[in-house]
Structures are given as structure tokens and as C-alpha cells.
């Protein structure tokens, strides 16, 4: 039992990071119907930029580095949309999907050129130690606690922006009916840029957290990017709560599989579950679309 609870805690901690990345997939899909395959690379860029800031500007508070990483990831995404996706918006979907894959590879190679191809340690790390719950036989690492708290803060922040601000209202309107939104006087191109910015800055924050826990390398966005994509589809692409629930679920499932079976089957079983869920409910757990347009 305590073993199970421990896997659960570990799963929720990783899953909350997947959830943050999945939010970006789902927001972008909701507004331009695009699976942004370069999204994992925005996370990787965030990790590198956070590391760079801490490395070059010794003494920068971690929070400031985190904010700079989020800002930079967001801006990279805005430029990506402007240069690579927007010109293809009225073309068949496959064009812009291809562009997204190209951007993904491009960003990986840019990182390799600028930062080198080997993994580097992040200049900062989480405080060591954990809180133990002896009666239950489980413990929570400080790092997990920080990840959970920060994820919660970011998710609440996102929720407030989307539901309580004028720009959030414009985002919801644009994602439900782009033309009608234009007729309301909403600059939908600006809203699309903003959506890319917000989604990628969440991914950038995860990049820093990931870097602090593991290390930083040009391909570090691939696995979490894929897991988060699966999470977004599982939760119902286009749905923000779906992305959060999907992310946590994938994290938990991965940890249970790795704990009880073997970590080599982790991804295979994750995909199996995705296929099972989609065959029963093609729109995902909280999705409303009947067809997922990829």
C-alpha cells in the first residue's frame, strides 16, 4: 500500500509537469487546430535559457531566471508562429504540421550548435531532503513539493487569465469562433500570438524544473513533449481541465508501470492506454469534439 502511495506521489509530481506542457498543446490546438510538434522544444529552450542566465549572471535569483526562461520560450513561440505557421494558415493542414516538425528539428539543432550536444548540469538544484510520513511509509521530496506548488500557481494563474480577464475572454471567443471574434473587434492574430506565448512560457517553466531535476540537453524536450501530447489527447484536446487531468494521469500511469512492471514498457503502456481510451471515447476524457483532426 505504501509502495502504491509512493508511486502515486511520484507520478503526480511528474504528471503536474506533463500537465503544464499539455496545456500549451491544448491551447494552441483550441485556437488554430494545430498539433504543435515543436512544443517540447519550447520547453528545452526554456531549460537552456534558464541555465544560461544562472551561469552568466552569477547571483541571479532562481525565480528571476525562471521568469526570463518563461519569457524567452514564449517569445520563441511567438516568432515561430509568425514566421513558420501563420503564412501557412490557409493551406492544407498537413503543410503547417510539417512546418511544426521542421521547427522542432531546427530548434534541436540550434540548441546543439549553441550549447553543444552533451547533457550539462543545471547551475541550480533543488534543496536536498524530503518530508517523511512514517505512519504511511511514504515521503515527499522537497523537489516534488516545489514542482507541485509551482505547477499549482501557474495553473491557477492560467485559469485566472483565461476566465477573469478581457484578453482571456477574447481567447475563449477566438477559439470558439474565429470569424465571429473578428467581428467583435478582437484582433485574432494578436490573440493567437498571445496563446502561443502563454503556452510556451508554461513549457519554458517546466524546462527549468526538469533541468534542475535531471540535466539539460538538446533532446530533453522529446520525451516529456510526447508524454504531454498523449496527455492532451487523453484529456480531450482543446480542453484545459482535460490537459491537466491527462497530464497527472500519464505521470501516475508511467510511475505505476515503471514501479510494478518495468520502465522499459512505460511508453508502450502509456500509448496502449491512450488507444484504449480513444477507442471508447474518441474525443478524450473531457473532450467535446467527435473527431480529432491531426
Amino acid at each position, binding site marked *: 500500500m505504501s509502495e502504491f502511495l509512493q508511486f502515486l506521489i511520484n507520478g503526480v509530481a511528474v504528471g503536474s509537469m506533463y500537465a503544464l506542457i499539455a496545456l500549451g498543446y491544448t491551447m494552441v490546438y483550441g485556437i488554430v487546430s494545430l498539433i504543435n510538434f515543436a512544443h517540447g522544444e519550447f520547453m528545452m529552450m526554456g531549460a537552456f535559457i534558464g541555465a544560461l542566465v544562472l551561469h552568466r549572471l552569477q547571483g541571479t535569483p532562481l525565480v528571476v531566471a525562471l521568469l526570463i526562461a518563461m519569457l524567452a520560450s514564449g517569445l520563441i513561440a511567438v516568432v515561430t508562429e509568425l514566421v513558420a505557421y501563420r503564412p501557412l494558415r490557409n493551406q492544407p493542414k498537413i503543410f503547417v504540421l510539417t512546418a511544426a516538425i521542421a521547427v522542432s528539428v531546427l530548434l534541436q539543432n540550434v540548441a546543439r550548435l549553441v550549447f553543444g550536444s552533451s547533457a550539462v548540469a543545471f547551475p541550480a538544484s533543488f534543496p536536498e531532503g524530503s518530508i517523511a510520513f512514517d505512519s504511511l511509509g511514504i515521503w515527499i521530496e522537497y523537489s516534488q513539493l516545489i514542482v507541485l506548488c509551482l505547477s499549482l500557481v501557474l495553473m491557477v494563474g492560467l485559469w485566472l487569465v483565461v476566465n477573469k480577464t478581457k484578453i482571456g*475572454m477574447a481567447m475563449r471567443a477566438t477559439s*470558439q*469562433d474565429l*470569424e*465571429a471574434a473578428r*467581428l*467583435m*473587434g478582437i484582433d485574432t492574430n494578436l490573440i493567437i500570438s498571445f496563446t502561443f506565448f502563454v503556452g510556451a512560457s508554461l513549457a519554458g517553466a517546466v524546462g527549468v524544473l526538469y533541468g534542475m531535476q535531471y540535466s539539460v540537453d538538446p533532446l530533453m524536450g522529446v520525451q516529456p513533449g510526447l508524454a504531454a501530447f498523449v496527455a492532451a489527447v487523453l484529456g480531450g484536446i482543446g480542453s484545459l481541465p482535460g490537459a491537466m487531468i491527462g497530464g497527472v494521469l500519464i505521470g501516475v500511469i508511467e510511475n505505476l508501470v515503471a514501479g510494478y512492471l518495468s520502465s522499459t514498457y512505460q511508453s508502450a503502456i502509456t500509448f496502449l492506454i491512450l488507444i484504449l481510451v480513444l477507442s471508447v471515447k474518441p474525443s478524450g476524457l473531457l473532450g467535446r469534439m467527435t473527431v480529432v483532426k491531426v
Partner: protein
Amino acid sequence: MLEAHGVNVYYGAIHALKDVSLRVEAGSIVTLIGANGAGKSTALRALSGLHRTSSGSVKFSGQELSSMPAHRIVRLGLSHCPEGRHVFPRLSVKENLELGAFIIKDKAAIKASLSHVFELFPRLKERLNQAAGTLSGGEQQMLAIGRAFMAQPRLLMLDEPSLGIAPILVQEIFRTIKQISVSQNMTILLVEQNANLALKIADYAYVLETGRIVLHGKASELAADPRIKAAYLGH
């Protein structure tokens, strides 16, 4: 107030509007009638900036609109209630109306137009927190008109407000349109397939056939015109 001159619009190779010219005088109700596929919606889309014109000019209160994006045109006071309603389905009635007033900063003015919309369409008030997508077709049409009204436009363009709505409700909606025009002194450009009704409330009318204006004149005169009677009024 609005003056289009020699407007051409293409969808790829399809020439949807051919040298269309029309005028809308301030304070009037002008209707644009025509059969399915004549290009009526295309005309409104061109005027509101949803679709680019390939040539011609559109002037609204002296300002050239033809290369202006849609979200700026509405700020000049030209509001477009699109065909098929296009309410935001998962937003509430209230949020839809608030979005109608997206361009308006003055909170008191928004409140005033909101209560005005409730006067025009009391049903919307009863359904304030209902998701717009769950409203009936007629209620959605009321919401779409109310939403366009919330922008406090000087010119309100309505695309087939009678589409898919029970006859009794159509009467009600047309009465409201007339009321908006009279009491708010709002200029209206009304696109309709229901020529009978449209000609009754309009001052002036244009007839569109396969992308071309083939006839125009006072609504009362067109209603009596034998060609119109034969083609559009079913006599």
C-alpha cells in the same frame, strides 16, 4: 453613410461579386435581396472586412475600408451580424453580449445597451447564464442581433435573420429590427431571402443576381415591380 463602388470579390476562380455598387443612406433601412448563391453574404463579408475585395472601393463615413482588417472596421461603427448566427456556443448569453461590447470602454454605456437589448429581447434576460449553444435557433438569432447591437454601431448589417426560424418568431424579429432602426436611429443593411418581409420594412432595396446588382430602387416600388413579384415574391 456607406458607399460601395465597383466592388469585385473572388473565391479562387469563382467571381462572386461583379462590379457591385451600392449606397446606404444614414437613418434608412436598406435591403439586399437575391436567391441562394447570389452573393448576398459575400457582399456583407466584403463590407465588414471578413473577405478581401480584389478591386473597388468601400467608403464608410468617408473612410476607405477595403484594406482594413475586420477588427478595426467594427470600431468605426459598422457591425455585422453574420449568416448562421455564429454565437459563441460554450459561452453564456451574458458573455456573448459582453463580447459584443468588446470595443466599448465605457462601463455605463455597456450597461445601458445591455438593458436595451433586454428590452428588445426579453427572452435573453431569462437565459443570461445559459450556454449560447444550447439556445433554440430563434433565441440564438436574437442573441446574435443583440450582440451586434452591443457594439453600438451606426450601421448594423444583418445577414438573413429569418433563416431557419419559425414564421411567428420571424415576424417578431423583423418588428424588433424596425424598432431598432426607429428608436435608436440606427442605419440598417438587411440581407434577406424572404423578400416579402424585407421589402415591407425597408426604405430602399437592391436585387443581386449571380454576383451582379440587377435592380435597385425604393422598396415600395420594387415590391410592386412585376419582375420582382414573379421572381422573389411568389406571385
